[in-house]
């Protein structure tokens, strides 16, 4: 780069100096962007959470068998407080899934530990709705909650991501 700059200046082109300065400004700006990106990445690494985390409350199960939606009993999912969710399960074509056998598990991927409680689906509320009791998240951060749903001889798992403040 410096070579080309020298060349331009040596050739005495009237625009040489201006173009060189422009290049340096671009270089300086690039440096700023790089530094900022570096710090940004450092901060991201400190939190280890994937940037494209899907926090949707309605998700498809892994093999696409079910559409699952959840609603916590309170508007905001509390930290450190045991609470219930209602989940609604439909087939891919929108038919409510009734009489499903469902197991619940959860995990905090950054902390290598699971849920502090053993939540369970305690009631089939009908119309594809189920009551989940005993959910508790004992620290802020990224949690995952997995429901493994078995109905009509088919089993599939759906994962919800939570980002708790």
């Amino acid at each position: 780069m410096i070579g080309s700059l020298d060349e331009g200046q040596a050739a005495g082109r009237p625009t040489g100096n201006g173009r060189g300065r422009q290049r340096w400004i671009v270089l300086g700006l690039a440096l700023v962007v790089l530094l900022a990106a570096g710090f940004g990445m450092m901060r991201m690494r400190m939190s280890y959470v994937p940037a494209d985390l899907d926090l949707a409350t309605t998700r498809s199960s892994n093999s696409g068998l079910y559409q699952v939606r959840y609603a916590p009993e309170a508007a905001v999912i509390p930290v450190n407080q045991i609470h219930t969710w209602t989940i609604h399960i439909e087939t891919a074509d929108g038919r409510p899934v009734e009489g499903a056998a469902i197991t619940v598990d959860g995990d905090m991927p950054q902390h290598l530990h699971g849920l502090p409680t053993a939540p369970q689906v305690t009631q089939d509320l009908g119309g594809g709705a189920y009551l989940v009791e005993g959910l508790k998240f004992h620290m802020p951060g990224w949690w995952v909650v997995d429901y493994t749903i078995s109905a009509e001889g088919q089993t599939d798992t759906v994962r919800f991501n939570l980002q708790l403040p």
Partner: protein
Amino acid sequence: MRSIFLTQWRLLITVLAVVLLTVGALTAWLWPRSPWTPEEVTTLRGLALASLPPLAPDPSNRYGDDPRAAALGARLFFDTRLSVDGTVACATCHVPTRQFQDDLPLGQGVGTTDRRTMPLAGAAYSPWLFWDGRKDSLWAQALGPLESPVEHGGTRTQYARVLWEHYRTEYEALFGPLPDLADTTRFPPAAGPVADPAARAAWEAMTPDDREAVNLAFANLGKAIAAFERQLLPSPSRFDSYVEALLLNDVAAMQAALSPDEVAGLRIFIGRGQCITCHNGPLLTNNDFHNTGVPAVPGLPEDLGRATGLPLAQADAFNCLSRYSDAQPADCAELRFAKADPHVQTRQFKPPSLRGVAERPPYMHAGQFATLRDVLEHYNQAPAAPAGDSELRPLELSERELAQLEAFLHSLSGLGQAPAACLGCHPEPDAPAAAAPERSIP
């Protein structure tokens, strides 16, 4: 050639200036006194006492928010007659002027316990009580030490008789009639399901109905004490003033609340120190259980913490699902959905609230560490646990950073002299004169 050098110098200076400005700007951004990111502000707000929700009713104790129960509980809390030899009250170890703890590595009742006395401010918010969570309510907790041979050392017939002889009017107005405890044939002076074989035999010899009547009185004794303890809350600290000022964007008030070192310590607390992994929420505890590799104390029996605590809570005759509980099973979610995992739960203990922590050494469940610095060194080094797996990883904090973290912990001390709602600390003005000698404040 000269002009080329000149140009290059100028360019070099420009680049240097840009780099310096960038580094300067970033340093200012990252420096402790810089503004917090929106995420950090959310975190800090969540730790402030202002975020503490009102205490929800305890469904297992229908007297929990009854002022008459709290007044009776306050008197019982200080009554040394609730012990085998008349020397120990709840307040003997839970000293009101000392954050309701005793400054000792191991609690001292009629004997010496195997664990440190826990402070009580905000305890009512915890779903599990004791270091190992072997009780699931404040009222059930209060009953444990009463029958421990090294704490109060007495029996439930003895305590029912104390209610009969000294608190009968107040008790019966609240809880209904006591059985005829004047009858020492039906109700022996010392009988209960305790370690002492004679007291145990006397208990077994009682009729099921009489045992049931005593159990009920015993449970109600706990419920009255719990009603008192539910009023014990932490008082705001300089940290809370800082967060309040931060939310108002009042830089002067922020600087008045915390020093730059304390702010730096706070940054470590919510960041690299990972303290908020367990010490989160406005009480600075998640009230859960964690193995942090705290060393065992030579000479004490092996302590497996939560691994033994949860089965005890599940089997407890006074738990949320018991007949002495006022709760419906649906209200007992913590107990019903508790996860038993003896391996993971080995040597897990409950993180205490860090509010007021600097004022109450020694630290940990058996007073293993004499100073806050010892505690921080432990977390920094993250040694292997004596049993089970420690959740800690070395923090690699410098001496200076540890000092900043320690400085921050000092900012969590309550600014009030004593909890505002400490009604048991002084005799109520309208208390009957005869009540005065019942209090014994060590």
